[in-house]
């Protein structure tokens, strides 16, 4: 009936899973526009696309979490309607979520039990859990509560939970986003093994090198539509990126004539107890950042990056003023506003709720960080014209696209809001800029604009500190890279010497000393 376009080896046999013209509509917005894909057994199939391309919507429909507006899903050639995830699981479809679907205050075994249909007793299930985790080399202690575990361990729970249902088809949504390169390698071994066992995998990622290495087929989505299917091994990372974006991405260039000058941000033996139950203790952090320099801080999320940002920005104060020195002035005890007056600027990771007040207008948000040092307040009264001018300048300089002149922050897309926030801070001509995850969840075009802006700012003489989990990003813009692990910061490496292997070892908590590290693997 349907033309079998793929020249697969399984001709005659229907694909394991197939979507035909799958469409999902939210009001006027088409999240998925008539998408047809085919997944064969023993295939690792990549799903590529930028944020908002419709990847998550598609896999949610395949997993039964949302109902498609039109089109159908076929499982082994038969049309199926999935009433919910439990039905998908009973047919043999498993899913590992990007933002883990785990319960922090429950134990590992309870978390796994919640992902199963509950037909076996808790004791039998626990025994099987230990057996499955041993078989696939994914060690887990069933009695521990999730909040005590590392990100890598949490992902193991998700994978083991999916494997315990013996799925024929497994969906993985950005599984390596939070892993060290070494942890990712271990994951790939497990995935190759699952493939060899005859299972199919749908692999969502935007790490293109990874996709080239692991995947047999790639489907590319853009703006809710399928734009291409290809063999990623025959493509280059650049050609895959072009298909995702639908055009060339502007290359980020380091401007010539960059010189390092005096130290502008110095951190001396900064230690800080955690402020929250699940927080990380900062231990003896020291570094020096000169004008004209970009220092990158790599590391798996949750190793103290948030706490370091809070200590640098003044959201948390230190008892010892000398721990944070901005422009030669001891500032460890100074408030956020006082630090801004010294010439520092801060861009936190979370755009909505931390970087901006979501329901306030852009002009009001510009005022909130600029009131101390940017002449927008006279004798306690707001100069509305000046705040609007700031918005206009940020809009123009950083190509912020929005529907009105001064909309609410929450109405902007992630990339445009991030361009606005970075622009708002850069337009203040800061001497020191501390920025956390500058391009997280931002489309490739906006990411290039932001990275270029950071490079230009350093060229103009500012000291820039960038925290990022994206090693490629740090390699592209940073002069030196240090790694955070368990609240400690490694000595910075020159970017030219910071190989993925070295950074990966540091991110996993090993030292770079030549002697054998005695840490227990996976314990």
């Amino acid at each position, binding site marked *: 009936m349907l033309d079998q376009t793929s020249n697969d080896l399984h001709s005659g046999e229907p694909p394991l899973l197939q979507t035909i013209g799958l469409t999902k509509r939210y009001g006027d917005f088409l999240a998925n526009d008539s998408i047809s894909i085919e997944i064969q057994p023993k295939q690792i199939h990549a799903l590529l696309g930028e944020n908002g391309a419709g990847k998550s919507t598609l896999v949610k429909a395949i997993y039964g979490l949302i109902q498609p507006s039109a089109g159908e899903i076929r499982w082994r050639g038969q049309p199926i309607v999935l009433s919910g995830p439990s039905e998908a699981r009973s047919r043999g479809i498993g899913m590992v979520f990007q933002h883990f*679907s785990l*319960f922090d*205050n*429950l134990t590992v075994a309870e978390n796994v039990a919640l*992902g199963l249909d509950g037909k076996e007793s808790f004791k039998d299930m626990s025994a099987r859990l230990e057996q499955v985790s041993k078989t696939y080399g994914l060690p887990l202690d069933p009695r521990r509560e999730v*909040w*005590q575990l590392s990100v890598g361990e949490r992902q193991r729970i998700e994978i083991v939970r999916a494997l315990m249902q013996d799925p024929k088809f497994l969906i993985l949504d950005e599984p390596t986003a939070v892993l060290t390169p070494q942890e990712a390698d271990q994951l790939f071994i497990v995935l190759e093994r699952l493939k060899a066992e005859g299972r199919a995998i749908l692999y969502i990622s935007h790490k293109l090198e990874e996709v080239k290495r692991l995947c047999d087929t790639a489907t590319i989505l853009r703006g809710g539509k399928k734009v291409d299917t290809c063999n990623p091994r025959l493509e280059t990372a650049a050609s895959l990126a072009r298909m995702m974006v639908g055009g060339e991405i502007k290359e980020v260039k380091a401007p010539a004539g960059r010189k390092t000058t005096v130290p502008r941000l110095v951190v001396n033996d900064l230690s800080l107890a955690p402020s929250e*139950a699940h927080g990380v203790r900062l231990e003896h952090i020291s570094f020096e950042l000169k004008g004209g320099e970009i220092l990158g801080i790599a590391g798996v999320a949750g190793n103290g990056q948030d706490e370091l940002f809070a200590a640098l920005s003044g959201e948390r104060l230190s008892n010892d003023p000398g721990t944070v020195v901005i422009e030669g002035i001891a500032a460890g005890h100074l408030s956020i506003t006082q630090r801004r007056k010294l010439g520092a600027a801060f861009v936190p990771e979370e755009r909505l709720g931390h970087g901006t007040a979501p329901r306030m207008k852009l002009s009001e948000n510009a005022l909130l960080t600029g009131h101390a040092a940017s002449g927008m307040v006279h004798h306690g009264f707001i100069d509305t014209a000046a705040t609007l001018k700031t918005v206009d300048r940020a809009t123009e300089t950083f190509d912020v696209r929005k529907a009105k002149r001064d909309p609410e922050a929450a109405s902007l897309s992630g990339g445009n809001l991030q361009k606005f926030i970075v622009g708002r801070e850069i337009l203040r001509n800061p001497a020191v800029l501390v920025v956390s995850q500058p391009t997280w969840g931002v489309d490739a075009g906006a990411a290039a604009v932001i990275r270029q802006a950071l490079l230009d700012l350093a060229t103009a003489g500012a000291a820039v500190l960038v925290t990022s989990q994206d090693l490629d990003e740090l390699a592209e813009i940073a002069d030196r890279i240090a790694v955070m692990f368990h609240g400690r910061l490694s000595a910075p490496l020159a970017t030219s010497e910071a190989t993925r292997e070295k950074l990966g070892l540091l991110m996993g908590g090993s030292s770079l000393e030549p002697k054998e590290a005695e840490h227990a693997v996976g314990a």
Partner: protein
Amino acid sequence: MELVEAIILAVLAASTPLLIAATGELVTERSGVLNLGVEGMMIVGAACGFAGAWLTGSIFIGALFGIVAGTLMSLVFALMALGLAVNQVATGLALTILGVGLSGLIGAGFVGERITPAMHLYIPSLTDMPLIGRVLFGEDAFVYFSIALVIGVWWFLYRTRAGLILRACGDNHVSAHALGYPVLRIRTFAVMFGGACAGLAGAYLPLAYTPFFIPGMTAGRGWIALALVVFSSWRPGRLVVGAYLFGAVTILQLHAQGWGVGIPSQFMSALPYLATVIVLVLLSRARTGGSTAPAALGTVFVPDR
């Protein structure tokens, strides 16, 4: 000797409505819903419970009336806070105001009437034992039921799959939804259970505590039940300890006044709340990790379909 026995009996009687209402609210909050309308559900349960018992002459049917009335009140809350995703704090407060007014309306015709209160157990020789006889073997059915209720809830929460799913909804509703659990339906049942318990706790007052109905007779017990849930850090075992402790404070306050102890009664009335604040402080200082409150408590959840 007899005074001690009388005090213990009075403490048990004063604690029972607190224990029943707090057990229900504990289940509601464990599912992630904060229903501040306990006082309102209790007072409506009291009015309807008395009406039922007066009309039929049966304490049992009166208790059923109370349970049904509390459940109906909780359904109003569920419709607003879960169905329409209205702010839970505001809805709960509104429910209490509604309940106080509604109970006055329902109970207006019954003020001044009397019923025969619930019978107490009597086992010859056992009940006649000195000191502990009447405490252990001479209570009314509500007291025994309240103990069974807490044990049942403990067993449900920690030993059954349904209880695990309910706790999961309270910890992270997004994850529970992603795994395919009907979060809103589960929460609705939890809210209804809380309402049923509050209604029964309210009905206990005119059916067993005092054999008549007066408007506003719950007198803040719903608020104490809410504080109790926090005091217990959401654990059924500690809830029993807390309920009897709070009950004891209430009774001792009366006796202290009788004995002429020079402590203002207002201070004694405030003790349960003060105790809750102190426990909260101690808990948060002693905490090494994990959260004591259900992580999703009081947050609105709207599933995307």
